[in-house]
């Protein structure tokens, strides 16, 4: 066994730095996810089942939903393209780039682009493509592939990142994660501001509203969908959710399962290109819907894999991934797949070929940790077994191509023996005799390494007299089976009841959400925001909310004076209490509306707040530049207490959400965990978020 896969496995196991990184990932992620799921407010198993059913319904009716979705997206003014395969998808992107005479493309993380091999074809066409997710940026600088679908640089330690940055970015060598992050921020800021096209993925497409939903922590997803004139979104056709309620359900699960967060820092909801009076946002938006084998998968026994929401939880839970890491997963020809781990071993053969990639599914002990970790309850072990049995076609000859020869012949022999009790008994005897010859004085056999078993384990010798033989001589058929013994062990319950009770789902909580502005909600909001690293300040205001707001004016003025800042980017005056901007101007603060990368502080209002997650809801629109909460290092937000809602689902159904070109939910300062999962604040978006909450007297 000296193929590339086994070589990779051995070198991964022999790489102490990789082992340390993978261990840290497994431990950190597991703990974080458990904590995050505990905050769901409902039994995880119930929520998982609901999500599973929603996903099944979506995939079963995919044609219908896809058609509806496309109609809605087109109505919203987004140009829709459909790609049958990878080649078509790449061609579509290339043509859009050429039509716009693009030279520089800024990309946020999209697994579909890795799947279709987009970067090197764009580069071959003379375009400069820059990955802007910190992890992706690191692996791009190193000329590697992502080794994980959520944390692309999970295989690296900080020293390796420091060395890469030192070599490629010409900065002094350092292992300090905040310094490395700040270096990437500086370099990539230039890319965002000058890129001709932004390319992103799509986490969910909402059928009822035609919304593209993107979740990121760093802010690069917002940058590439807001700053360049042209935005191209790449999306697998299976990533649909029928309604905004379904979106809320998936958004409750995705970040928790992926990174142990209740919500990602930025949840972008993109409805349309920039509108006539919008101050910023991409002017031209394209959606490329990629099939690339998904429809074939949908009609196959592997259809369940389409429920996947790409959270990476199965990778983090998988004991095999923990040993070998994402880069080890390769085809027979040594070609990598962007999708490693359990889900990757199921989908890679569909996207890239069963005979080449089918072997990956055999690298699993079928322990089921992946299924247990999956937030939409995909039966991954069952699907891995189907890939082993021939994949999409369930073709036995395909299956055999990936069974090592010795194993296949061994199993044929075993089957011949095991379908006949006489032969089976003889074989047991033969096994015993063999073991006596091989190791006459030991109860243990030390098999040679090439047998696989002998690599690290000894084998107990077969018994001289197997159970069946002992039984047939009657020596263990004890006569203790007397009903008198029964009295000692009273029966507590029958199986049928116990098993049913065990599988019975707990009741779903049907509690009505509290009305917006409820005192407890405001408290909850402030607690969550502070946990995320933001600050929260109460400001008294007149009953009608429009009049005097002396508190607010004073707090913000003092804040700006403290930071010695005289110029801010802000939403229009009519988005705030009447006296706020005049009050600031009177204090000598210069207020601009247009984006300016030199400005340190952005001041925004907010459509609403979400108590559960401490999130601000910021819609685009006239007088409401998206950049004010994105480009400056410090984001100040004015939020009315009576617009603080309990949960995401309530907010998603507010009319303004569907009516704005784009909406972003901001949950604390920009952050990343891409270097050794070290939580670092401030990658691309603001480093500080301060909320001033207006409460009527």
């Amino acid at each position, binding site marked *: 066994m000296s193929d590339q896969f086994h070589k990779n*496995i051995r070198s991964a*196991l022999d790489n102490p730095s990789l082992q340390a990184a993978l261990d840290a990932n497994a431990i950190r992620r597991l703990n974080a996810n458990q904590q995050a799921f505990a905050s769901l407010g409902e039994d995880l198993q119930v929520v998982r089942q609901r999500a599973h059913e929603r996903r099944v319904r979506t995939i079963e009716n995919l044609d219908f939903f896809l058609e509806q979705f496309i109609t809605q997206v087109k109505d919203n003014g987004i140009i829709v393209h459909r790609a049958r395969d990878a080649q078509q998808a790449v061609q579509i992107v290339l043509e859009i780039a050429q039509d716009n005479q693009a030279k520089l493309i800024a990309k946020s993380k999209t697994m579909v682009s890795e799947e279709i091999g987009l970067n090197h074809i764009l580069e071959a066409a003379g375009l400069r493509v820059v990955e802007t997710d910190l992890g992706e940026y690191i692996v791009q600088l190193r000329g590697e592939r992502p080794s994980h679908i959520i944390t692309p640089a999970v295989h690296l330690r900080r020293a390796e990142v420091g060395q890469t940055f030192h070599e490629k970015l010409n900065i002094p060598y350092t292992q300090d994660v905040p310094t490395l992050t700040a270096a990437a921020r500086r370099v990539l800021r230039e890319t965002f501001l000058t890129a001709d096209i932004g390319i992103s993925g799509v986490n969910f497409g909402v059928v009822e509203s035609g919304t593209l939903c993107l979740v990121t922590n760093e802010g690069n997803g917002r940058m590439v969908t807001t700053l360049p004139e042209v935005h191209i979104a790449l999306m697998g056709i299976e990533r649909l959710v029928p309604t905004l309620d379904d979106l809320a359900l998936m958004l409750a699960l995705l970040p928790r399962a992926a990174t142990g967060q209740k919500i990602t820092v930025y949840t972008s909801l993109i409805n349309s290109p920039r509108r006539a009076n919008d101050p910023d946002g991409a002017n031209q938006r394209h959606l490329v819907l990629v099939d690339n084998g998904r429809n074939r998968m949908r009609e196959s026994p592997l259809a369940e894999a389409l429920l996947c929401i790409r959270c990476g939880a199965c990778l983090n839970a998988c*004991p*095999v991934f923990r040993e070998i890491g994402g880069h080890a997963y390769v085809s027979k020809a040594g070609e990598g797949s962007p999708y490693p781990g359990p889900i990757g071993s199921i989908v890679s053969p569909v996207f890239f070929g069963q005979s080449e990639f089918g072997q990956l599914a055999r*690298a*699993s*002990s*079928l*322990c*089921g*940790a992946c299924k247990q970790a999956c937030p939409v309850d995909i039966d991954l072990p069952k699907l891995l*077994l189907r890939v*082993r*049995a*021939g994949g999409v076609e369930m073709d036995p000859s395909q*299956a055999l191509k990936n069974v*090592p020869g010795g*194993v296949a012949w061994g199993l*044929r022999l*075993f*089957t011949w*023996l*095991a*379908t006949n*009790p006489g032969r*089976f008994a003889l074989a*047991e005897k033969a096994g015993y005799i063999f073991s006596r010859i091989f190791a006459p004085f030991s109860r243990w056999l*030390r098999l040679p390494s090439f047998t*696989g*078993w002998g690599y*690290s*384990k*000894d*084998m*107990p010798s077969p*018994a001289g007299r*197997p*159970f*069946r033989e*002992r*039984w*047939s001589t009657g020596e*263990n*058929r*004890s006569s*203790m*089976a*007397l*009903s*008198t*013994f*029964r009295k*000692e*062990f009273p*029966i*507590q*319950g029958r*199986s049928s009841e*116990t098993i049913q009770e065990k*599988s019975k789902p707990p009741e779903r909580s049907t509690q009505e959400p509290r009305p917006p502005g409820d005192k407890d909600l405001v408290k909850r909001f402030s607690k969550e925001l502070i946990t995320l690293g933001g600050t929260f300040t109460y400001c008294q205001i007149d009953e009608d909310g429009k009049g005097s707001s002396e508190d607010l004016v004073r707090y913000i003025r003092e804040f700006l004076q403290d930071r010695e800042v005289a110029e801010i980017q802000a939403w229009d005056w009519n988005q705030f209490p009447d006296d706020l901007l005049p009050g600031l101007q009177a204090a000598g603060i210069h207020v601009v509306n247009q984006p300016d990368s030199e400005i340190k502080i952005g001041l925004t209002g907010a459509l609403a707040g979400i108590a559960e997650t401490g999130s601000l809801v910021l819609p685009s629109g006239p007088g409401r530049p998206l950049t004010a909460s994105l480009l400056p290092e410090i984001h100040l937000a004015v939020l009315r207490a009576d617009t603080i809602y309990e949960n995401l689902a309530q907010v998603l159904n507010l009319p303004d959400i569907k009516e704005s070109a784009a909406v972003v939910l901001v949950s604390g300062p920009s952050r990343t965990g891409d270097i050794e999962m070290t939580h670092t604040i401030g990658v691309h978006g603001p480093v500080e978020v301060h909320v001033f909450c207006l409460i009527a007297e």
Partner: protein
Amino acid sequence: MAETAQLLVTCIIDSLYPATGEAVVQVLNKVGVPVAFPSNQTCCGQPAFNAGMRAQSRSMAEHTIRVFENTEGSIVVPSGSCTAMIRYGYPELFHGEPVWLQRVRTLSERTFEFTEFLVDVLGVSDLGAHFPDSCTYHASCHLLRDLGVSRQPHILLEAVHGGQFAELPHSEECCGFGGLFSVEHPEISGAMLERKIANIEASRANLVISCDAGCITNINGGLHRLGKPQRAVHIAELLAESIRDKSDD
């Protein structure tokens, strides 16, 4: 008089650990359940199923179904993995064949893993077992995650007198067996087992209790290779220990 239970002893226990099979019989007898052993049984077909060779797996499954559908009463299997094969593997294997599926369903409804049978079907908790040393528990994957059996072995272990129960750190992590996985991917399997052994050492217990002979073979194989003193044994042997002690008296 309790209904006779049919023992599906599993091919591993049959050929490698006949004493475990006997312990199962002794424990069942002790709680008043007579045991029958359909002697034509061989293997449930899981090795070929997991290898992706479904035709081969199917012929073994058909054999097993034929052997056991001619019997009556509960089928007791001292293995979470083989029980899961019958309960979840067989429906997959005979997918789309209503007649076979009905036979599978009838069989599967009668089939219980050993500890599941003791605790859920018989309602037994204290078997009066006695063990004077420390032991710990490895949660076998198919038992835990396919069958959802975790409470049952713990109830039985808590009732063992004399020794002390030690928690096994990360007891729910796979030991690296995975059937033919351990042969096809010995490097990964070995690395997973290394972790398991480190956790066994951390538990400070001398005995690791498991409900699956596959895990036991794997864990002991590694322990023996490394010259470690700890051993894994099947729960039935622990539960039968006191029965044997008493019969010695």
